[in-house]
């Protein structure tokens, strides 16, 4: 089970990293979602015990799932959600300002703006 979980986490992370290397902002956001999913699953998997849901009344002598990692995963999911929403907003904003969500094009646009600013800038 440990091996399987590790494999699944590694696949999630690897897929996320692959998407991060793309030049499309939406794919980068999706990559971030996959990486945070990998992290969430890792936290969940690092629980010390697995068994019944941690809810009283607990069955006598039965194994209870580690509630601490669940609490951590829960907050991690919500934070991951808010960060993803923020990233999406950034991507949309980039589209509004520069009319593209493609990294190379964004970079060109950025350099254009920078060189325009540089024209007005003198060292001292």
């Amino acid at each position, binding site marked *: 089970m440990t091996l399987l979980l590790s494999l699944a986490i590694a696949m999630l992370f690897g897929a996320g990293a692959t998407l991060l290397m793309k030049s499309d902002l939406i794919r980068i956001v999706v990559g971030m979602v996959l990486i945070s999913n990998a992290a969430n699953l890792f936290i969940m998997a690092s629980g010390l015990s697995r068994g019944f849901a941690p809810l009283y009344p607990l069955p006598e002598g039965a194994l209870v799932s580690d509630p601490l990692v669940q609490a951590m995963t829960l*907050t991690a999911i*919500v934070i991951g959600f*808010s960060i993803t*929403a923020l990233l999406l*907003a950034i991507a*949309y904003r980039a589209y509004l300002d520069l009319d593209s969500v493609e990294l190379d094009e964004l970079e060109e646009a950025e350099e254009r703006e920078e060189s325009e600013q540089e024209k007005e800038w003198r060292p001292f």
Partner: protein
Amino acid sequence: MTEPKTGSGAKGGATMTVMTQTIARILFLPALMTGIAVLIKGYADVGDGFNAGVIAGLAFLLQYVAFGYEEAREKLRTKYLPAIGFCGGLLLALLTAFVPLLLGKPIFTHSPAPGAEVIHIGTFELITAVAFDVGVFLMVFGFALGAIDIVARATSRNHAGGSAEEREAGT
């Protein structure tokens, strides 16, 4: 145009049918009730402030999808809800966290103390930890609704006018 489209950017999104709108209208209150119930039962059963906040956010999202930004906003009076959730939630959470400090106790000392008698209203327990949970609920709900509202506004603007106006409004 009050009816937004879903789908990828193109013009071929499905228009919301009367059926969808009716179901959405019927589902709104029960969904909201579920959220509140999850919050109230938080200490006794599955669920907590995070869950409840997302469920309540989802209840509103359904209305936005079914009726479109303008109409949903008008009907549900959501204008100030995200701000209220944001400020109220933060304030409530901070209060429960820091008031014990003023009383000379460690931060996040909840009362009543362990072993003391707790007033129950059904499964709802009157303890400060629940108040903190309500703060979490308000915050998460404020976030979910705020994000949905802002994106929905952009969508409705996108449909209503040309890109020039939208760009101007966006900056």
